């Protein structure tokens, strides 16, 4: 008897099917992550309908989107922004009323929701994970089906621990070869979006495969999956392997003792079968990739750091030409100028894309090397580093990374989403240009009329010191001779 070959996505889907009717499925949700911004209306809806949270034990709350990145120990009452304070207090009340575990602002375990889940061992292979935040795709790095949902769906999951879903199609993105020095997961992710476009993944779940993906650390895989949503895909996945298991082992919520062995054999089944059918396959030569940077206002507006700003007239359709003209105008760039000439005012190292310990280390390594060459943050640049969680911050401080950043003139902050979406006081001023390790360069994302260039942590660190965008592979030797 031949059985239909299944992809990793198919397997997770099948394992969570509660019911299926007329092409619409009810999927069971293993982990529901919540935060202050996209939940107040969901809890209000529950209350109004007299409904309860079905599985508080499968729900975890953090405060991340609008918390300040200094003075967190002073508590919520000291948060200056009145509306943010109200949201934080509303979340605290809602989790208390419903018996949901919560890491409040100032708790060392608190941080950006997509950093906290994996760090606590809550994120595990073969799971379904949702959160009212689009970058939930991050958790796909563990071979979990993870995606963002809206507030009505948050309410649905709270009440039923399930979600109504239509099945997506399967896409495989294979990144072959080996990354060169100075080329990171962020560059791979940007290159993938540049290749497929921001709507290229719409209707698909992407599984990342190939030697480059296998060779990435768990942090790197999280960065890659984090950005899948910017390619429009429903979710990104990497099949779990020994690296995945080693990362989870010993984390607070990881299975222990005999349960670990049961879990391990269960997790190991979550890989695509040989010859499983993918509706679309994209192959990228990882060895040919170089550090990438965005020039426009969509994550697909990406070029190698060695490249020039494209001419809007070179785009194929009138829509794209108009969008490119608008983007150049907004970004204050000229067609044809080398992107490395773009002088920057601000640097942001942080966000759920790049705020884990490895990102901190990569940035700090560049800063330290520059420091040894007598270089500090350029006088006209304001640079900030925002670790992804209290635990990342603590680890970085134990390793002395904070001291390196501070000595070079970086501002070392407390954890949170910060200038990724600029809902708290950390924002760009109109016209300011920023090298940012976050995930969105949309108009106004980091502050009204602010200009964002998405880059890797190493590239952001180098830009802070050079004062303009630079190729992290060559900048020190070229600039100091």
């Amino acid at each position: 008897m031949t059985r239909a070959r299944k992809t990793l996505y198919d397997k997770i889907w099948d394992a969570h099917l509660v019911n299926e009717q007329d092409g619409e499925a009810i999927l069971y949700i293993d982990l529901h992550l919540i935060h202050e911004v996209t939940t107040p209306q969901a809890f209000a809806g529950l209350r109004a309908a007299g409904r309860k949270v079905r599985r508080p034990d499968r729900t975890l709350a953090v405060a991340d989107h609008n918390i300040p990145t200094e003075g967190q120990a002073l508590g919520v009452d000291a948060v200056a922004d009145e509306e943010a304070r109200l949201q934080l207090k509303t979340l605290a009340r809602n989790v208390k009323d419903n018996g949901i575990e919560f890491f409040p602002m100032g708790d060392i375990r608190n941080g950006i929701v997509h950093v906290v889940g994996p760090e606590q061992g809550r994120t595990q292979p073969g799971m379904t994970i949702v959160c009212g935040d689009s970058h939930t795709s991050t958790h796909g790095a563990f071979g979990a089906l993870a995606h963002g949902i809206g507030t009505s769906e948050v309410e649905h999951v709270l009440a039923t621990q399930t979600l109504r879903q239509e099945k997506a199609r399967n896409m495989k993105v294979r990144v072959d070869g080996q990354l060169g020095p100075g080329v990171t997961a962020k560059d791979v992710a940007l290159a993938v979006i540049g290749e497929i476009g921001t709507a290229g993944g719409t209707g698909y779940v992407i599984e990342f495969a190939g030697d480059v993906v296998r060779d990435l650390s768990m942090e790197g895989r999280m960065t890659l999956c984090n950005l899948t949503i910017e390619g429009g895909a429903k979710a990104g996945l990497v099949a779990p392997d020994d690296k995945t298991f080693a990362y989870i082992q010993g984390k607070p919520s990881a299975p222990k003792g005999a349960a670990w062995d049961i879990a391990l054999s269960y997790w190991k089944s979550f890989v695509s079968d040989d010859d499983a059918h993918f509706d679309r396959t994209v192959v990228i030569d990882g060895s040919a990739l170089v550090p990438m940077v965005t020039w426009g206002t969509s994550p697909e507006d990406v070029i190698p750091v060695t490249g020039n700003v494209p001419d809007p007239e070179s785009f194929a359709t009138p829509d794209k030409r108009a969008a490119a003209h608008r983007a150049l105008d907004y970004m204050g760039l000229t067609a044809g100028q080398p992107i490395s000439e773009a002088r920057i005012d601000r640097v942001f190292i942080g966000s759920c894309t790049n705020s884990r310990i490895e990102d901190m280390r990569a940035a700090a390594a560049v800063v330290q090397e520059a420091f040894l060459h007598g270089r500090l943050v350029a006088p006209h640049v304001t640079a900030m580093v925002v670790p992804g969680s209290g635990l990342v911050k603590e680890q970085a401080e134990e390793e002395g990374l904070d001291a390196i950043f501070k000595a070079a003139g970086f501002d070392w902050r407390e954890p949170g989403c910060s200038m990724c979406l600029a809902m708290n006081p950390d924002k760009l001023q109109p016209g300011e240009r920023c090298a940012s390790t976050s995930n969105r360069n949309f108009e106004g994302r980091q502050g009204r009329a602010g200009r964002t260039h998405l880059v890797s942590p190493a590239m952001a660190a180098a830009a802070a010191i050079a004062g303009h965008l630079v190729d992290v592979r060559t900048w020190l030797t070229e600039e100091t001779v």
Partner: protein
Amino acid sequence: MQAFTRLDGRAAPLSLANIDTDQIIPKQFLKTVEREGLAKGLFYDFRFDGDGNQIAEFVLNRPEYKGSSVLIAGDNFGCGSSREHAPWALMDYGIMCVISTSFADIFNNNCFNNGLLPVVLRPEEIAVLMDEAKGGNHMVSIDLATQTVVSPSGKSFHFDIDPVRKDKMLKGLDFIGETLMHGADIDLYESKRALDRPWLEA
């Protein structure tokens, strides 16, 4: 949820592609704990300049598009952040239907969960609608039962829609109440899961 059956209304053309939810409703309006009152933030940076003055040329600020209930937009509408404030803001402003060549996934789901109808038409059909809506007559009709959009000049376009979603939209069904009718299936699933994956039980 509000039911959607038929809509006759003024259509505003917004011919930009990749309009993201940060543009539909910027983050400073997300600090509310309510669903209502978000119209003030809709397309804020398109409608108002840095000093809070109306930008006269933006389509929704033009007198002839006052009270529009339909938006015709470029490709990949609603990409970016998952914020449901985007459909809430559109609906609070009075926009009950958006027509585009494609919608980002989460935004699309959020629309269906609130009774805002996302209609997908072909690029050449959007071009016709866009053109006509820029003329003197901006009235379009959308009929969900027959799955048609009628342009200002009377051209009729058919659109596809998932039958399950269509039915729920027509009836304005409460999704949670409906799922809870499958409570026994969820119970069954949970008891199997407790056996298969005991480490996930507290």
